[in-house]
């Protein structure tokens, strides 16, 4: 039951993009077409899950025992960056089409505050390994959820004709804001 509440909390109530405002960069960058957004979602779920696992391990077995918690930021960034670069190389080799589609956004996951955010939140909550990974995966699913909804909206906005002042990113940001307001409706769902 604990896990169910954790997942609902991460996906809906405290959605990483729409409530915590983390990971906005890929949210706006990759939300032009559904196939690309789905590819990005897959990549984020994978990276966040693995990153949470690896960072938890390093924190529990290296940083904490040796009293090096203050190195948390540097160590996590180092691990996440290396890991995403590894994913980049693997993707280029095995799924070149998806790699071409995601282009610059793959390295963007490296500096993505959502990935670092999830790692830091796990440390703060002092959760066990399972809970950390589940929380990270749920957060990534929440990110994907918001991303796919937003992509669908954006595909329709592409075809519309907003006033000059709103064209391009402007109307997208307004829409994201409205989506965020909509997700506020989930407040209080999980205490």
């Amino acid at each position, binding site marked *: 039951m604990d896990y169910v509440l954790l997942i609902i909390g991460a996906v809906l109530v405290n959605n990483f993009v729409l409530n915590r405002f983390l990971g906005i960069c890929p949210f706006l960058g990759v939300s032009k077409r559904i196939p690309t957004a789905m590819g990005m979602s897959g990549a984020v779920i994978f990276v966040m899950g693995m990153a949470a696992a690896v960072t938890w391990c390093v924190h529990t077995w290296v940083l904490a025992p040796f009293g090096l918690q203050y190195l948390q930021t540097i160590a996590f960034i180092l691990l996440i960056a290396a890991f995403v670069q590894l994913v980049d190389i693997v993707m280029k080799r095995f799924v070149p089409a998806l790699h071409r589609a995601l282009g610059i956004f793959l390295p963007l996951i490296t500096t993505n505050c959502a990935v670092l955010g999830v790692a830091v939140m796990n440390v703060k909550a002092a959760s066990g390994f399972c809970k950390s990974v589940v929380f990270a995966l749920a957060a990534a699913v929440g990110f994907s959820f918001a991303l796919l909804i937003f992509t669908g909206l954006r595909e*329709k906005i*592409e*075809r*519309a*004709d907003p006033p000059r002042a709103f064209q391009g990113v402007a109307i997208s940001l307004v829409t994201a804001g409205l989506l965020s307001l909509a997700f506020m409706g989930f407040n209080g769902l999980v205490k």
Partner: protein
Amino acid sequence: MKTFPSPFCFSGGIHPAYNKDLTCGEAIRRLSCPAQLVISLSQHLGAPAVPCVKAGDIVSGGQRLADAAGMISAPIHAPTSGKVVRIEPAPTPLGRPAPAILFEPDGRDVWESTLDPLADWQTHDPRALAERVGAAGVVGMGGAGFPTQVKLSPPADKPIDTLIINGAECEPYLTGDHRLMVEQAATLWEGAAIIRHILGAKTVRVAIEDNKPDAIRAMETALPTTLADAAVCVLKTSYPQGSEKQQIFSVTGRVVPAGGLPMDVGCVVENVGTTLAVWDAVVNGRPLIWRTITVSGDAVTAPANFLAPIGTPFAALVEACGGAKGRIAKIVAGGPMMGFAQAALDVAMTKTSSGLLLLSAARVPGYTSQPCIACGRCLDACPMRLMPAELSQRIEADDIDGAEQTFVMDCFECGSCAFVCPAHRPLVQHMRRAKAVIIARRRAAPKKS
């Protein structure tokens, strides 16, 4: 059981003002042959007919003027005796010019036909009868003009068990089929029997909308007791009840698969006019040369139903109705929903011309189109259960592939969506554009095995 209400009705549909009272009480009048006929060689779906006469030839009524070009084509015959003046391109109701025979009737109406009358058609081989129908140049007179012989010769792996005679006539203003059912009910049943014999079908149904009570009564009364498994099916009045797929569902409950044909569910639908033309071809040996046409609208002095020879110029039809009344704002060949607007009255009628409408400015308000507001009325109205709003937005953004994925090819351009759209969007035009692009692409793409 002679008459029964249809057990089903298709989803969607609209209820436009029908205005059929202008002509539904008018008996069909035979039009006297005009001074000149313009007989188009492209009066049917498929390849235009190839002329077998030349300029200066004198021909008799019923004589063949042009041969069918290929399997999906139909021959064309002279409506009366006269002279072939010349063969040259002429405008057609569809807008594109096509080769046509300029014909001058001589008023003597000398008749000659190569087809013998067959009073005992029951004893003849169905295939021979189908060939006779093809040789008589009979095509679908409901509007599409599909060669009837091809329709009556389904492949062996598609057995037909139900024949539906389409008496729905769902288009506003048009009353030609209605009058045919009232005036020639007995002949119509015999025509249906002939078609049933050709197809080897078991069941015959005549489908009539419930806004034609006199036609229903006439057909019910004239139903011969010797005709087995035949009945009148009364349909709920809803546009487009006259469309094949919708009618098959309303009468039998069967759904024609997307991209499929009525024969895929064991049905054939034939228009009332076509059925009578088949009867004429078989029993009297007459080819298809005259047809019923409704001339109506509020810019016509005396709206009426005519039996006119093919090739009659629209101007002659209007004259026979006492001329135009007031300023004509719009000329429509066909019905107002799926008919084609004309630039002038210089076009001549063809085998598929079911109506000619002259409308005043009061009936044709100007409008400006606006962006889609996603109200969803068009989704409710579409009889094929498509999403016209989404489709039109994709087509407007030139996403033709996206439109193809959302089944734009299933749209048969009935106009229900455009009728209900509060933003007055030209939805049918968008669909037509997308379909033209997709068909051109399919034609250009090399066939991959």
